[in-house]
């Protein structure tokens, strides 16, 4: 019950999804659409469980008075306000949209833009052209960056932009294709191992 049933469920759902994608019959397509809707139904429960875990973590922080425990109340405030407004008034509600546009979106963009500062120090370390490979990385990155900004094209008479496009379409694409092919073969072999029950690490430890 504890290990065999999950393995059987994994096998049945895996095989069903493979076969239904190769069969155009209406019965097969019906099963395919039904199982997809099942995954969309089960998914939110995992998110709610993750939120419960987040709440437990912050409750423990408050109880133990660990460093900066006061900020856990801010997490709860943000979470409760968003969930209450979203659940009771639906996501289309102007108040929910206002919170998204003026609280979440600016913070999201700002958090990601912070990387522009940190990447500068990373660039300093990466761009010290000590080897041939590091020089290649440096030159490519410089061409791509110069081809992206108007001043690069102004200084080079549009050559930077053309060189950038050629790099993206040729050597960059071939490297990406090599990586994609390798990763995809790995994904397929790992998926087969999971469906056949050879790979069982997702079941965790214990009996």
């Amino acid at each position, binding site marked *: 019950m504890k290990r065999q049933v999950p393995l059987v469920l994994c096998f049945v759902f895996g095989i069903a999804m493979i076969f239904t994608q190769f069969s155009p019959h209406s019965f097969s397509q019906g099963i395919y659409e039904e199982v997809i809707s099942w995954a969309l139904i089960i998914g*939110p429960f995992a998110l709610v469980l993750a*939120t419960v875990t987040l709440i437990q973590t912050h409750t423990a922080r408050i109880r133990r008075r660990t460093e900066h425990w006061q900020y856990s109340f801010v*997490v709860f405030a943000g979470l409760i306000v968003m969930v209450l407004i979203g659940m009771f008034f639906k996501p289309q509600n102007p108040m929910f949209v206002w919170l998204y546009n003026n609280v979440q979106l600016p913070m999201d963009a700002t958090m990601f833009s912070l990387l522009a500062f940190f990447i500068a120090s990373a660039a300093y370390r990466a761009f010290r052209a000590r080897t041939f*490979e590091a020089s290649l990385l440096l030159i490519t990155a410089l061409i791509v960056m110069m081809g992206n900004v108007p001043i690069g094209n102004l200084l080079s008479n549009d050559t930077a932009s053309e060189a950038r496009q050629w790099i993206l379409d040729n050597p960059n694409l071939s*490297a990406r294709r090599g990586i994609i092919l390798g990763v995809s073969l790995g994904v397929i072999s790992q998926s087969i191992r999971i469906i056949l029950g050879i790979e069982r690490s997702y079941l965790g430890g214990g009996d």
Partner: protein
Amino acid sequence: MDWNLIGIWVAAFLTLSIYSVLYRDNPFYRFAEHLFVGVSVGYGIVLSIYQGLVPFALKPLWETVTTGAPEGFIKLIPICIGLLFFARLSPRHTWLIRYPIAILIGFGSGIAIPNVLRANIFEQTRGTIAPFAEIAAGTLSGWGIFEAILMVVGVICTLTYFFFSVEHRGPVKWLSKVGIAFLMIGFGSAFGNTVMGRVALLIQRVDFLLGDWLNIIS
């Protein structure tokens, strides 16, 4: 009350609070950071429930209850499976969480095999060798032929670098070295694009602060 104006001030305060970490860790940054976590999680929950649970489970169930058609009752199965996630909260029944995880993993693996095969293996291989049909037809220029050969060489050498079943000695070593060169060009392009993407976000935030908030620039 002008909610638009309040929104601009709130967004400006939060933006500056996050940028304040560039000086050092401080209470404003910690406040914004924790608020971001709470708001993002809350937003994710609301959206996943309204885009997954409501249209695919609760709506069909409600229709079944109101019209008496039995089809919607099948949605009780995934709801019960989903509820098993909460067995994680009881140490004695925590093993039950394996059921929904096994279903989702089996579902994901089953859906991945044909899609990855089609989109990533067949299409990428076809994209790599397709120009050779044009070479055979004599419709490709000299530069085009060079690009087609470069593409195949790049793909083979990159794959060779990741091929660990044979020792990288002799010709394999040289193919692998060429593969590293292609990889470095790929990483350089990715790095350049990432830098420009982040700088674009920074410009957008500065534009918001100077334009929408302070009205210094139009």
